[in-house]
């Protein structure tokens, strides 16, 4: 005999599909990427204008007047390696050479740390291959005191901001010199001094916090601005939408970056984007100027960043930037892209490699050569390797040299409350 409630439930009719002569049966739409493993990579659906074609509006432009920028791609470097069009010219040769060095350092550091994870020296790693220009170039548009609210794939902000490679490795190894005392997953860095907010690891939460930080700066009549970062997949989180509402309402001095690297772990960007055409277009309904930029073009990223930061600093409010790029590597050390996209897809990516493009530009400019590039690559590898060695002298994840169990109880509150003191005592540390 079933429970009375179950009997009653059983009597409720279960949605039998109703056939109608007037309407065809409804169908659920689930977006699919153009190609899956085994297929031939195809990016023909990505419309890429020629470099130099997109206008550079005044920074006080009305967002309505530049709606088309949310559907185009701002590019500076053309196929011949020349910087062309109205967005060119924001950086000197020596600044560009420094930028190249930052990207090469990030790439070399990634390679070493990826290897270190495979060797069991840490639990986890996330690399930037293909996306180095986005964070490295953006960082150079910021001033001291500005604050980034990054995701886990913007370590270029730290490298271009002069943060120590040894401290990065210390954090990744969770060793005795880890600035975060072993409390955070590898690559979830934090450095207030370098304008780098603590990475949560929960996606999108930092986006709305950046807006709050920017509002605070405005409340205090400060001149500092905030910069928010998010990936294409995480724009589906409510935090992203709340951030756009608040940024729009209070005209917060914040730059809202979306790094569209085409893949959210195994999920192609169409699942988060839905029918909106581009991620940048999300900003239009909020009256936020929205631009798309070639994320593999160091010069273009810097020019757009500078434009948006200047808007924020002049009290003109938020700007949304979609960086169109491609995640060449896996999402993290825990997935294999061969399971969800063609192996050769990255080679077909139409915007090329950010390091090679900047290198070629500098060669065209006559300030760089293949030889100097190789030489610099070797120098950087030396620097990175010696930083890694120094960090390893302070321990790696499974070595004896790691933060103490006593540290685990510290810093939950400013002052340790009695119940935590009792627990620490019980743990005997």
């Amino acid at each position, binding site marked *: 005999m079933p429970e009375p409630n179950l009997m009653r439930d059983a009597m409720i009719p279960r949605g039998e599909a109703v056939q109608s002569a007037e309407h065809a049966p409804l169908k659920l739409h689930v977006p699919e990427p153009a190609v899956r493993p085994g297929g031939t990579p195809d990016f023909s659906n990505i419309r890429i204008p020629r470099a130099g074609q997109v206008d550079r509006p005044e920074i006080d432009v009305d967002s309505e007047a530049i709606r088309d920028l949310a559907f185009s791609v701002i590019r500076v470097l053309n196929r011949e390696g020349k910087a062309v069009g109205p967005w060119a010219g924001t950086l000197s040769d020596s600044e560009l050479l420094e930028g190249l060095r930052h990207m090469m350092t990030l790439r070399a550091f990634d390679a070493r740390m990826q290897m270190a994870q495979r060797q069991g020296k840490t639990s986890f790693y996330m690399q930037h291959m293909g996306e180095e220009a986005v964070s490295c170039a953006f960082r150079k548009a910021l001033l001291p005191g500005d604050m980034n609210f990054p995701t886990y794939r913007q370590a270029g902000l730290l490298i271009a901001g002069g943060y120590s490679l040894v401290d990065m490795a210390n954090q990744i190894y969770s060793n005795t010199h880890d600035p975060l005392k072993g409390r955070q997953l590898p690559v979830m860095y934090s450095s207030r001094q370098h304008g780098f907010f*603590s990475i949560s690891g929960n996606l999108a939460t930092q986006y709305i916090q950046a807006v709050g930080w920017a509002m605070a700066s405005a409340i205090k009549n400060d001149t500092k601005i905030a910069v928010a970062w998010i990936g294409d997949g995480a724009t589906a989180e409510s935090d992203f939408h709340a951030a756009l509402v608040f940024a729009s309402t209070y005209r917060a001095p914040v730059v809202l970056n979306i790094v569209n690297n085409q893949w959210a772990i195994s999920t192609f960007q169409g699942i988060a984007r839905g029918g909106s055409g581009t991620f940048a277009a999300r900003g239009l309904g909020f009256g936020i100027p929205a631009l798309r930029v070639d994320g593999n073009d160091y010069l273009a990223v810097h020019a757009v960043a500078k434009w948006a930061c200047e808007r924020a600093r002049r009290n003109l409010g938020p700007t949304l930037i979609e960086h169109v790029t491609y995640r060449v590597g896996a999402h993290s050390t825990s997935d294999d892209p061969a399971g969800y996209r063609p192996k050769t897809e990255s080679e077909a990516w139409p915007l090329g490699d950010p390091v090679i493009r900047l290198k070629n530009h500098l060669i065209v400019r006559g300030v760089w050569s293949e030889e100097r590039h190789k030489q610099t690559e070797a120098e950087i590898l030396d620097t990175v390797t010696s930083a890694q060695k120094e960090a390893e002298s302070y321990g790696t994840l499974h070595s004896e040299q790691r933060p103490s169990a006593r540290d685990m109880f510290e810093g939950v509150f400013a002052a340790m409350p009695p119940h935590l003191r009792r627990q620490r005592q019980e743990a005997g540390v």
Partner: protein
Amino acid sequence: MPRRTMIEAIRDAMDVMMSRDDDVVVFGEDVGYFGGVFRASQGLQAKYGTNRCFDTPISELGIVGIAVGMAAYGLKPCVEIQFADYMYPAYDQIVSEAARLRYRSNGQFTCPLVVRMPTGGGIFGGQTHSQSPEALFTHVCGIKTVVPSNPRDAKGLLISAIEDPDPVIFLEPKRLYNGPFDGHHDRPVTPWSKHDLGEVDDGHFAIPLGSAAIRRPGKAVTILAYGTMVHVAETAATETGVDAEIIDLRTLLPLDLDTIESSVKKTGRCVIVHEATLTSGFGAELCALVQTRCFYHLEAPIARVAGWDTPYPHAQEWDYFPGPARIGRALIETLEA
């Protein structure tokens, strides 16, 4: 001494702190121009300007999310969630962000933030205006949880909460806003102006977080309560004539375990009362702590009186509410055990 309602005391606490510290900002839904649906922030925008007190979009996630960013910048936001029942969209920002920011950044970023929210039932608010979610906060490492039971405590505790260097959840029993509620919904409300604890000093005074108060001394049994239930428990003790000692916890985390322990060791009996649902409620934690600390002094099983494990109903509000009759029965059963 001036007498204030609980709402006036809360408003006064924010006023005092806003005038003492330029970094204190107050915002939430309907909080600015109108002064909040319960009028807790009435007059603050006119006095301090829209830079310090303003209306927000209807987004609890957004309210707490920007507050975390502001706190990281160096402000001290004191925000309102219109009803505790609406806090769930903000829960991730509270649990994963506000609560852990100090820890995960090793103190580089901190989160001195107060989230005020009206809590509890007794106003025919149905399931979306009546909940008591305190256990969802006490289970989280890195935040403090406060529940005042009267105007004087509300002011002193809110000042401490705003001054605290870490995030504090400040739950305001809305049934107490205008007067101490004795648990008899069919009787007239006693206004705070006729109650000793409605006497609230002007200016700045702080009641430290983590200290309980003995509301009624007694020898026969210890009642652990907070918020509205402190007053309902007092009614139950008076009506049954049981010589109960009533401890008003005031702060659930950090908890004043010493005051609890010495009382239960004295009485040998303990009844725990809360309005929130029973299962996995804060009473379960109290029960575990009391039996660990006082096992050899206990002469009866620890009793819990709480809301039933159902959603908060509308028409059956007073069947749901753990009123004086249910508490009275628990007191007598505990004495007779």
